[in-house]
């Protein structure tokens, strides 16, 4: 187990800088998720941590050791790849034990370690097969076995679940969480799936264009996104953005959008400076409830999507589409008028010019 610090790491390919001055800290035993869309630099950052790619500047510190010039094999890390990267010519047993074999661990301790890892992952019956004879989920387990058998300081996962079908993905996600709870090893996990990020991470770094947009625990990321990109990226359906003017209202502040007035509570101190100006309000779909209230929006029902536990309603409010997550019993009809009350304590305000949180 070890801490991980990334200090001012940069990476350029030719004249293109893909990582700009990345700073990260991961506590001992923590689970850091690097989350972002394709091409945001998250996998490159993981490769730099692994030592597979040299950085163009900055330091990577694992434990108390700066590892910038340390070969991947000497960093005491283990990595699970998106394609699993199992050696196709070797049996599962040798795949799992390969790292120990390379470190000249004697045969009997190696066999013990393989048996323990296989037992933990329930793949003992597969040890003599070749990777080609395994299903996707089994390969995934073998890849994890190969990682845990060495008892590394740090686990690196590069989108390990993206090749699995939906059901298996949920199962393996739980498995990874269980494994992390049991082993307590620090993890860096790359994904573009926000559900994985929210469920697994103790810390989530949302990345875009080679810059960390926000580094915080999942709850903070969800409830208090640092900017409109993070707000829009996390959550499904995505957060609604409603543009309006901030005004004084009954001694407090309120957002005016057309004829609607949303009285704001729990306002951040900086919001006063935006009185009289345009702001963007970020409203999560689940903060709506049907009916009149102190802060309500009225519009026309556009689309109704029953999902089973919830009913998703798209409401046309003065030309702006708003998604709301309502109870499963709500079954409005398209075209009919509807009024929704907003829980404004969960509302986020953003500066429309910079996109940053107010």
């Amino acid at each position, binding site marked *: 187990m070890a801490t991980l610090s990334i200090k001012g790491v940069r990476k350029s390919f030719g004249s293109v800088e893909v990582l700009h001055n990345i700073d990260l800290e991961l506590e001992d035993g923590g689970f850091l998720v690097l989350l972002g869309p394709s091409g945001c630099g998250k996998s490159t950052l993981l490769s730099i941590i692994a030592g*597979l790619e040299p950085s163009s500047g900055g330091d990577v510190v694992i434990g108390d050791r700066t590892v910038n010039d340390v070969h991947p*094999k000497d960093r005491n890390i283990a990595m699970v790849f998106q*394609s699993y990267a199992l050696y196709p010519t070797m049996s599962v047993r040798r795949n799992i034990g*390969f790292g120990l074999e390379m470190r000249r661990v004697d045969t009997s301790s190696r066999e013990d370690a393989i048996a323990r890892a296989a037992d933990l992952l329930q793949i003992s019956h597969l040890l003599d097969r070749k990777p080609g004879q395994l299903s996707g989920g089994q390969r995934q387990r073998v890849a994890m076995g190969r990682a845990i058998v060495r008892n590394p300081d740090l686990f690196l996962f590069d989108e390990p679940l993206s090749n699995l079908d939906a059901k298996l993905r949920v199962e393996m996600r739980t498995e990874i969480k269980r494994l992390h709870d049991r082993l307590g090893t620090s993890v860096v996990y790359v994904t573009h799936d926000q559900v994985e990020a929210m469920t697994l991470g103790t810390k989530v770094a949302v990345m875009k264009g080679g810059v960390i947009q926000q580094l915080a625990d999942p709850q903070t990321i969800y409830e208090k996104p640092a900017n409109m990109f993070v707000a829009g990226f996390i959550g499904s359906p995505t957060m609604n953005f409603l543009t309006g003017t901030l005004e004084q209202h009954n001694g407090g502040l309120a957002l005016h959008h057309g004829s609607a007035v949303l009285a704001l509570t729990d306002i951040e101190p900086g919001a006063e400076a935006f009185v009289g100006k345009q702001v963007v309000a970020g409203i999560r779909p689940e903060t709506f409830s049907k009916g009149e209230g102190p802060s309500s929006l009225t519009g026309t029902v556009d689309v109704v999507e029953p999902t089973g536990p919830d009913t998703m309603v798209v409401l046309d409010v003065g030309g702006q589409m708003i998604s709301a997550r309502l109870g499963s019993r709500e079954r409005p009809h398209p075209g009919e008028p509807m009024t929704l009350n907003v829980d404004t304590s969960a509302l986020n305000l953003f500066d429309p010019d910079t996109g940053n949180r107010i």
Partner: protein
Amino acid sequence: MAFARSRSKLVWDIGSYVVLILLAFICIAPIIWTFLTSIKLEEDIVTRNMIYIPTRITFEHYVNLWNQSGYPVLVINSMITTSVTVLICMLTGTIAAYSFSRFHFRGRTQLMLAYLIVRMFPAVLMIVPLFIVMRQVGLLDSSVGLAVAYTSFLLPLFVWMLKGFFDAAPKELESAARIDGTTRLGAMFRIVIPIARNGLLATAVFVGIAAWNEYLFALMLTTSQGSRTWPVGLQLMVGEFQLPWGMLAAGGIISILPVIVLFALVQRAMVAGITAGAVKG
């Protein structure tokens, strides 16, 4: 309607088979004819009326060739030259192909093109400078010298072919191996080469066959029995006043035997190697 369709299919099938059989015949007939000539009596070979199928069979051409003409030495020379060529290509070409496949260094594309350009010139153009170089370094008329000359034009083929096989091996496997504790070179030997072994075998067989059958360089760069290869030796049997058809045919058959045996042994792996990555596995 259905009848017409099946009828046209039949005509099409017959047509295809006729063409295929014709092409196969063109390919195989010379080999069969050489074999038949090699087991005919001398007086049955050149006759007023062509004898297609020999009525009298003899193996005296094989015996004479082996015992009198020094043919075993030629075959051994060819084997040495071919082995050394394949060995040099394997040792240098494998590492070169790996570098081209994995590293993006300055001048990489130009260097690969330069490899190809060597193959674009006619072989004759290369012989004169090669001859001078070989004479100066004292490698003229030696098996090793001939192997080096072969390497000069077979190595590009080897590197280009093998690079394709290395490209097909996923890079993540090497990353995994490097994290597991191997060096870059260790990852190549332990992971990439075992994956690309069929490709390596196919490439080595291609180069081996090319070296085994090469004639022009061998003719120019060898002068004595000590290093002469079988294609040259066979050609030199044709004298001013004699043309030993039987022995020539026997020599031809003996020479293609190693190639046939080699193909039979490795053809499964070769086909797997050549078609690797062509379709989703």
